């Protein structure tokens, strides 16, 4: 057995990936856009797949969102999780059709719903990977979301790496100091222990965090957070530019194209 420092699939990697995803540090097409337009773009692609049963249209829409995800430079962690979900869904669709005595039509119906879900997922991944929390919360503000929700989004993201780091430290402590034991069949017992520690780690984290949040709340008070006169100033920072209009226009054209394609071409 030999240990080495791993750059992927390690706790540190997951943390970095979360930060990269949350703050759109990879850049990409949508990161340069106005958050309101990104959310609009997402809403378009989240709705249209449900307006059709034509498989060709759905595949075309799926292709469109796949290209969008590539342009948004989605990271390996999020993409990997998406693929795992996608592939297992497909396997399930065929498995279910076969077990319950369905024919290829049942399978196709299940494939259709899976593809629709995948399309919407890819669109949301592309959109939210590109929005950093500040943009997202300002965009929400512009649409009359309550100040508290908008702040919550931004503060939640701010706390995420801290909580993850804290979790890592406490979990390490538990792993090093807790009773060890046999790995068990297929490592089941080791897995069980890890699961137990992961749950136990929340006790110290809650208590440690509760203490520090008091300062945060007081500080918010002194810095006029509850005075909340800043809505207009924040919204004034937003600008809709040529890129925003172009991206939405191209998307609309592509969606119409997908429906046209579905009308012309038919499978089976």
């Amino acid at each position: 057995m030999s240990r080495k420092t791993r750059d992927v699939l390690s706790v540190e990697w997951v943390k970095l990936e979360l930060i990269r995803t949350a703050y759109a540090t990879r850049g990409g097409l949508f990161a340069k856009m106005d958050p309101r337009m990104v959310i609009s773009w997402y809403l378009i692609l989240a709705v249209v797949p449900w307006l059709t049963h034509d498989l060709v249209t759905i595949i075309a829409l799926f292709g469109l969102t796949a290209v969008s995800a590539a342009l948004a430079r989605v990271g390996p962690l999020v993409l990997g999780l998406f693929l795992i979900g996608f592939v297992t869904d497909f396997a399930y669709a065929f498995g279910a059709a076969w077990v319950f005595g369905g024919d290829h039509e049942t399978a196709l119906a299940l494939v259709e719903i899976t593809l629709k879900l995948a399309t919407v997922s890819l669109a949301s991944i592309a959109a939210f990977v590109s929005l950093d929390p500040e943009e997202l919360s300002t965009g929400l503000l512009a649409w009359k979301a309550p100040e508290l929700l908008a702040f919550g989004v931004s503060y939640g993201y701010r706390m995420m790496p801290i909580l993850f780091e804290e979790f890592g430290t406490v979990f390490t402590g538990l792993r090093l100091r807790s009773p060890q034991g046999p790995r068990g069949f297929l490592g089941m017992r080791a897995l069980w222990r890890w699961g137990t520690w992961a749950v136990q780690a929340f006790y110290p984290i809650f208590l440690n965090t509760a203490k520090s949040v008091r300062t945060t709340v007081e500080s918010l008070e002194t810095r006029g957070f509850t005075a909340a006169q800043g809505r207009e100033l924040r919204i004034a920072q937003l600008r809709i530019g040529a890129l925003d209009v172009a991206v939405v226009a191209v998307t609309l054209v592509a969606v119409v194209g997908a429906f046209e394609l579905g009308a012309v071409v038919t499978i089976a």
Partner: protein
Amino acid sequence: MSAIIEIDRLSFRYPGAERDSLRNVCLTIEEGDFVAVIGGNGSGKTTLCKTLNGLVPHYWEGDFAGEVRVDGVDTYESSVAALSSTVGYVYQDFQNQLVRPRVRDEIEFGPTNFGMSDYAERAQQAMEMLGIAHLADRFVWQLSGGQAHLTALASVLAMRPRIIVVDEPVAEVDPAGAHALYERLTELNQVHGITVIVIEHHAEFIAQYAKSVVLMDDGAPVWHLPAPQAAARAAELASHGIPAPQIVAACEGLDLAAAPRTVEEAAAVLRTAGARQRDSWTADAVAGSVPRLASSEVDPARTDGDERRPVAVASAVSHGYRSVAGDLLPVLSGVDLTIRAGDRVALVGGNGAGKSTLMRLLCGLQVPRGGSVTLDGIDTKKSSATRLAEHAAYLFQRPEQMFLKDSIRADVRLFPAGRKRDDADALVDRVLDRVRLSDFADRDGRTLSGGQQRRATLAIGLAMTPSLLLADEPTASLDVASRDSVIAMLDELSGAIAAAVVATHDMHLVAEWATRVIVLGGGGVLADVTPLELFSSDALLEGARVVPPQITALGRALGISPAPLSVAQWREAVALTDAAARMEVRA
């Protein structure tokens, strides 16, 4: 000058508290003053400061009597929001004060919330005043402690307050960072006329920077005096848990009634008084008083033929981390190091020099990207971190991260009981007794004081019966008395372990405890020396970004060789010319 803060017969009791936290406080602070508020734990310092921006009584609603006027406004009639544009407050745990992801957002946050359309200029100006404009686009969690502190200060400065309150500025940053912060505060005070109020434990900072001092005791000010007069009351300060600065103690040790504010002043006073080195103070005399681990039976002087058992050996170790952008940031490269039985090693160096990384590698928590680490003869790459925990215990910087169970006893017992040690319970009792926490054994670690928390983590480490004990900043954010108790504890415990390594910014800990100092910098070991050698070399001090203890700096300024590392050594080393003569006559 006119009074900017007038407090008249103020009393306050927190809801549900048994007694008043502030009792009949009468206090006036002039505009443009630089005030240090001092006093023991629970003397009401923080509560007093929270009355200034209206957190008491508007946020903390308790029994409030009397009157507080800030810039002529009665705080009871005003609100926290309104008062915040006059009074800025920087917390002790300032990291929790930062609520936005990036530095610029953070500093613009206050002005934006109050609807000030010039928020961007205000933020820019505040950053420039504190010299942190280059950090504007950083994420707040990428900042070092000192940078984060300045960001918190800038965020209140952007409101253009007339009063700034800073709660224990030294607690969570290294000495160089603390001095930098004080320099900035002094500038704000002198150039911009901002009234500065600090809550402070460390007499040396008070003496050097404050214009006046308020001593609090049991919820009321004992006195409010100009700083020089306050410093002269050394005995009274000591009785309130504020030991005199080492330079004052040095003068006292020679029966000189002087209260110098800086090392230079002290050196001038002592030169005039005729302080000189005693003949008995030689390098050999010092060697006799150098501490070392009890288990060491060999001379601690490091020679090539050192026969002492190697506990941890790093050979050609290189390590680094991935950044958010994906690059590999090298931290250590080609480090060779042997920690032998009996060593008491202090790792020093600036932030980011790799102190914590090296410790994590030495205890096998991580494995190096290049080279190898051998712990108790085991290659850390060939064993798991859980196995290696039987050989090395690593104490995290923040004690609460080590409190995994609901009582200190359960936390200390976790490791020995889990490894099926027959004598686990006896061991736990012995260890708790040793760190003098038997009376607190059933309490949650988080409810203990700072010093007790550190001792509890030491107990957790000792119960693991390691060969190598590693501690990250064991004296950070402790007041002077607790710090001294932790240093004394480390000193006593040395018999139980073969070797100890601490990463620290605390030069008192280095001077009074370590036998060996390893200076990290530029990815490698800059020097491997004794504390005395470190403090005698300006080049090394600069490279390590450390400030020697006042007493050592004073000794060097007076040409005393070897320079004393503690006040006790100072007493042995230095005498006044005529006093020394008198003693010789008596002999």
